[in-house]
């Protein structure tokens, strides 16, 4: 199984500028946001999109096991709950994202943390959607 990075490079081999920009954005996404929280959201996005190639995680198995039923989980922090709730709405229907979901993240991370988190979420979500689309369009390259 190819990593998402490898799939991006393979599909966009004739557009190295885009590949570099995507790589830079991905690297920067993990800097401004708590890495564990963002990783939880990455896996949750994979679950929602049935992106089986991104199900795996190096997080503590107890955390990973809690992701799919996060609303009832007691091992996740309040901030992680807020971010996962936001991430789900972001993936399912971003244009209808509830103010309460955003306010809960702001309450946990602050305004700057919220801005960083949302932009990071955009990056990790878009990478997954691209991978899924390319797997359909270019199965020989993206598989």
């Amino acid at each position, binding site marked *: 199984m190819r990593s998402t990075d490898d799939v991006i490079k393979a599909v966009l081999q004739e557009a190295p500028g*885009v590949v570099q920009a995507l790589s830079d954005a991905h690297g920067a996404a993990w800097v401004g946001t708590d890495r564990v929280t963002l990783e939880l959201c990455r896996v949750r996005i994979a679950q929602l999109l049935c992106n089986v190639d991104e199900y795996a995680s190096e997080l503590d198995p107890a955390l990973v096991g809690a992701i799919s039923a996060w609303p009832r989980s007691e091992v996740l922090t309040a901030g992680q709950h807020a971010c996962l709730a936001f991430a789900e709405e972001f993936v399912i229907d971003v*244009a209808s994202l509830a103010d309460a979901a955003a306010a809960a993240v702001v309450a946990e991370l602050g305004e700057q943390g919220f801005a960083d988190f949302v932009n990071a979420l955009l990056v990790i979500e878009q990478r997954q959607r691209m991978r899924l689309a390319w797997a359909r369009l270019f199965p020989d390259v993206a598989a």
Partner: protein
Amino acid sequence: MTNVELPDVALPRNPRIPVTVRAHTDLRRALGRWNTSVMDLETLEPSVVEAIRLRAASHHDCRT
């Protein structure tokens, strides 16, 4: 430039955080380079790219 009228939406469109609060510099600049590099792809018809950009802008309105 033609103004594009966005569809009516039920939700308010007030920013959720002050517009002066932006993602950290490295991420913001990287996202900008990503956007620019895609828009500059020579194999894409500019009008098609712009139509897709506008469609995405109206859909992906998280007001952040």
